[in-house]
C-alpha cells in the first residue's frame, strides 16, 4: 500500500521538459587531479554525464576536475537571472565560471562534506556570465565505491542543467524535499514514535515487543541520519564503518521484535544476534577499508535474510494463532521486505531508481504503520484488561457479599443450634427435677386449688423451657387442638357441643404464650359448664379477622348466681379468666343471669 502510494507520488511529480530555456550539459572533459584550477593543463579526457565513478574510474579516490562550455540559452530573457543545477554530486563540489570560483558545497578535504543526497543549485553571477563561450569548471571530491558502504555515497556527477533560476529553483526545491526533507520529517515522526513505544515497553515489561519496536525505530532514525548529515566529525572511512556497524543492532532489534511479538523466545537466537554485533565490525576491520562495500553488502544480505526469516516465522505463528492480526501485519512487513529487496537491487546496480532514497523515506512510513497497529492492539488489550478488571471487581464484590451473607447465616445457624441444644438440656433437667416434684404435688395434694396451681406451674415450666417467645403456633392448629379437647370433654359429660369455626384457610400465627393462656381460659370455661351450669347444650363460636381473634362460649345452663355486692361468683374463676385475657392485651366479658345461661366473650389482638 505504502509502496503504491509512493510510486504514484513519484509519478505525479511535474516533469520539466528540456525546452530551450534549460540547457542540459551531458558531456565534459575531465582530469583526475587535486591541483588548483590555474595549475591544470591537461583537461582532455572526455566523459559523458552522468559520470558514475564506479563505472568510469573504479577504485579512484580523490578529486576530479570537469570542464565544459555553454552558451546562454537562446529562449531566456537577457534580464533573467541564470543558475546552474546539479541533481547529484558526490561527495562535494566546487564550481568555477570563466575561471572564477562561484560556489563551494563545503569542505573538500577530509572529513569531506557529504552532499551525496543534496541537489545543488548555483546562481551564475550575471557579471561573469557571457552571451557565448562560457567555461564551466567543477571540482568533485568523491570516494571509491569499494570504500563506502552504500552505492549512494560512491563518487559521481550527474548531468548539469543551466537555465533561469526561477525554473531551476522549483526543480531544486522538489528534489531537496524528496531527498532530504522527507527523510528528516519521517525520521522526526519515527523518533517521537520510538520514544512513545520505548516508554510503553518500559511501563509494560510483559509486552517486551513494544520496547523492541521502539528501539528499532530509534536505531533506524539514527542510521538514517547519514542521508542528511553533511558535515561529519570524522573522515569518511570511519563514518562509513560506524554506520555499517549500526546495522547489526538494527537487524537484531528487528528480529527480536518479530519473535517477541509472535510470542517466541530463544536464548540461542539472542546469543547469536549479540555475537553478530561483535562479528560484523570485526570482519569489516579484517577486510580493511578497501573492501568495505563488498563486506557491507554481504552483511546486508545476511541481516536481510535474518529479518526475512523472522518475518516468515512471525507470520507463520500469527497465521496459526491470531488470524485477525495476520493480514495487516503481512501487508506491512511485506512492504518492508520488498523495500529491502528494491534497495538491494539498487546497491548491486541492477535497478536504477533515480533520486529518491526510497528505503529511507518509505520504511519509516511502514514503521509508523506497524506502530499504529501495535498501539491499536495494545489499546485493545488495555481495554480488555480494564473490562476484565471491572468484571473481576464486580465478581469479587458479589462473592464477598455472598460470603458475608453465608457467614451471617452460618453464625445464626450456629447460634440457633447451640441455643437449641442448651434449651433441650435445661428442659430435660427441669422435667426430671422440678417437673417430677410438681407432678407429685398435683397427684398427692388434698386441695384442688393447690393441685391446679401445680398443674399450671408445670405448664408454665414447659412454656419456659420451650423458649419464652416460643415457636408461634398456627392459629388453625390451635383451633383444632381446642376443638378436639372441648368437644371430647363436653361429650364425656353428656353435654351437646356445637363448635363452629371459620371455614376458610387461616394463615395467622398465635404466640406460644397466647396459646397456653387461651387454652386455660377455654379449659376453665368448659370446666365451669361441666361442673356448675347444669347445661345440656354448649355453643362455641370463633371469629378471626386480620388483627383480632374472638371466641364465644355460650351455654343454656342456669347461669352464675350474683353475690351480694352484685359481682359474679368468684368461685367460678371468672376473675382469673379476665386476668389472663388482660395479660394478652385482650378482654374477657362474662354475661350471665339466673335462668339465662352464661356467655363468655374472649377477644384477643393478633
Amino acid at each position: 500500500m505504502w509502496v503504491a502510494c509512493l510510486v504514484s507520488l513519484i509519478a505525479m511529480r511535474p516533469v520539466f521538459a528540456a525546452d530551450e530555456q534549460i540547457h542540459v550539459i551531458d558531456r565534459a572533459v575531465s582530469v583526475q587531479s587535486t591541483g588548483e584550477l590555474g595549475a591544470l593543463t591537461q583537461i582532455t579526457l572526455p566523459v559523458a554525464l552522468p559520470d558514475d565513478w564506479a563505472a568510469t574510474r573504479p577504485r579512484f579516490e580523490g578529486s576530479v576536475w570537469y570542464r565544459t562550455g555553454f552558451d546562454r540559452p537562446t529562449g531566456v530573457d537577457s534580464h533573467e537571472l541564470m543558475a546552474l543545477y546539479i541533481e547529484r554530486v558526490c561527495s562535494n563540489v566546487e564550481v568555477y565560471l570563466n575561471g572564477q570560483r562561484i560556489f563551494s558545497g563545503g569542505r573538500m578535504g577530509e572529513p569531506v562534506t557529504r552532499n551525496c543526497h543534496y541537489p545543488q543549485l548555483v546562481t551564475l553571477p550575471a557579471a561573469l556570465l557571457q552571451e557565448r563561450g562560457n567555461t564551466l569548471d567543477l571540482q568533485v571530491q568523491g570516494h571509491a565505491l569499494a570504500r563506502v558502504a552504500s552505492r549512494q555515497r560512491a563518487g559521481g556527477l550527474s548531468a548539469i542543467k543551466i537555465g533561469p533560476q526561477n525554473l531551476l529553483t522549483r526543480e531544486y526545491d522538489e528534489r531537496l524535499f524528496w531527498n532530504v526533507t522527507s527523510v528528516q520529517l519521517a525520521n522526526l515522526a519515527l523518533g517521537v514514535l520510538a520514544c512513545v513505544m520505548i516508554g510503553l515497553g518500559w511501563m509494560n515489561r510483559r509486552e517486551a515487543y513494544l520496547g523492541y519496536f521502539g528501539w528499532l525505530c530509534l536505531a533506524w532514525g539514527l542510521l538514517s541520519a547519514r542521508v542528511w548529515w553533511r558535515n561529519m566529525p570524522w573522515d569518511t572511512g570511519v563514518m562509513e564503518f560506524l554506520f555499517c556497524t549500526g546495522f547489526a543492532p538494527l537487524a537484531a532489534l528487528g528480529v527480536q521484535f518479530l519473535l517477541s511479538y509472535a510470542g517466541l523466545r530463544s536464548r540461542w537466537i539472542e546469543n547469536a544476534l549479540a555475537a553478530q554485533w561483535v562479528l560484523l565490525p570485526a570482519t569489516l576491520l579484517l577486510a580493511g577499508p578497501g573492501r568495505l562495500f563488498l563486506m557491507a553488502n554481504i552483511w546486508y544480505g545476511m541481516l536481510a535474510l535474518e529479518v526475512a526469516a523472522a518475518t516468515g516465522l512471525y507470520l507463520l505463528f500469527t497465521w496459526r494463532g491470531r488470524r485477525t492480526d495476520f493480514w495487516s501485519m503481512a501487508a506491512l512487513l511485506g512492504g518492508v521486505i520488498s523495500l529491502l529487496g528494491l534497495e538491494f537491487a539498487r546497491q548491486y546496480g541492477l535497478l536504477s531508481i533515480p533520486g529518491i532514497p526510497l528505503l529511507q523515506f518509505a520504511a519509516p512510513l511502514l514503521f509508523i504503520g506497524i506502530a499504529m497497529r501495535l498501539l491499536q492492539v495494545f489499546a485493545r488489550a488495555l481495554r480488555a484488561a480494564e473490562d476484565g478488571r471491572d468484571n473481576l471487581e464486580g465478581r469479587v464484590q458479589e462473592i464477598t457479599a455472598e460470603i458475608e451473607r453465608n457467614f451471617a447465616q452460618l453464625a445464626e445457624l450456629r447460634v440457633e443450634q447451640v441455643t437449641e441444644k442448651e434449651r433441650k438440656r435445661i428442659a430435660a433437667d427441669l422435667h426430671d427435677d422440678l417437673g417430677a416434684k410438681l407432678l407429685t404435688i398435683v397427684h398427692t395434694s388434698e386441695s384442688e386449688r393447690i393441685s391446679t396451681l401445680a398443674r399450671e406451674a408445670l405448664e408454665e415450666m414447659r412454656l419456659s423451657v420451650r423458649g419464652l417467645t416460643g415457636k408461634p403456633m398456627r392459629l388453625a392448629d390451635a383451633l383444632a387442638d381446642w376443638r378436639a379437647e372441648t368437644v371430647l370433654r363436653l361429650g364425656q359429660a353428656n353435654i351437646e357441643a356445637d363448635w363452629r369455626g371459620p371455614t376458610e384457610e387461616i394463615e395467622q400465627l398465635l404466640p406460644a404464650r397466647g396459646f397456653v393462656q387461651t387454652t386455660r381460659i377455654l379449659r376453665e370455661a368448659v370446666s365451669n359448664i361441666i361442673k356448675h351450669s347444669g347445661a345440656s347444650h354448649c355453643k362455641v363460636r370463633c371469629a378471626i379477622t386480620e388483627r383480632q381473634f374472638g371466641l364465644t362460649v355460650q351455654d343454656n345452663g342456669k347461669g352464675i348466681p350474683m353475690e351480694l355486692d352484685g359481682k359474679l361468683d368468684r368461685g367460678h374463676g371468672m376473675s382469673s379468666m379476665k386476668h389472663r385475657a388482660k395479660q394478652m392485651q385482650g378482654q374477657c366479658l362474662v354475661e350471665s343471669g339466673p335462668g339465662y345461661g352464661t356467655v363468655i366473650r374472649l377477644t384477643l389482638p393478633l
Partner: protein
Amino acid sequence: MTNILLLEDLPEIRSWLKVLVKGVFPNSQIHEAARVHDALELVTAVKFNLALCDLGLPDGSGVDVVAALRESQPECQSVVVTIHDDDDHLFPALQAGAFGYLLKEQARELIAEQLKRMSQGEPPLSPSIARRVISHFAAQTRPQERPQNMPHVALTDRENEVLLRVAKGYTLPEIGVQLNLSRHTIADYVKQIYRKLNVSSRAEAALEAQRLGLFRRA
C-alpha cells in the same frame, strides 16, 4: 387375669398410678419396674396385656421397652405415660409402636377414662399427632426423599381422610358420624395408621442398619 407392666421411676407417681390402674382393671396383676433394664427383664419373663411406660428414666428411655414389647409381644398394648407433652418425645414413641400416650399431670378421672377406652380398642389420637403423622407419610411419598428399595408404606384414602379430620380438631366419634362409619371401624383405621407408622419406621431403621452394615463391609 391381665398382666400389666408399670414402668415409672418416681415412687410417689408409681404408687399413684398403681392405685389408678387397679381401679380401672381390678383383676389385674401389676408388675412394677423403675428402670429400663428391669422392665426389659420382665418383658422376657412375663406375657403382658398392657404396659404403661415412662419415657425419661435413669438408665434410658421407655421407648426401648415399647420397641421390645412390639417385637416380642405384638398383642400387648403399650401406652406412654409421661410428663413430656411435646411431639419430639411422643412421636418417636408412637413410631416405636406405642398405642397411645397419657400426660401424667392430667386429672385422675381423665386418665382412667382414656385407659378404659384404650382397653376397649379405641386408640387416642390428638390433632397435633395427626399433623405429625400426615407430614411423615407425605415426606415418604415424595420419591426423592425416600431411599431406594425402601418398602413403600402408604396410607389408604380413608385413613388419610380420618387423619385430616383429626388434624382439624374433630373427635373420632364425630368423624364416624361424618363418614357414616361405626365407632369400631374408625378405631380400626386409627390402629391401622399406628401400625403403618410403626412398619414404616421399622423399615427405615432396617434400611439404616443395612446401610451401616454396607459401610462396615467397605
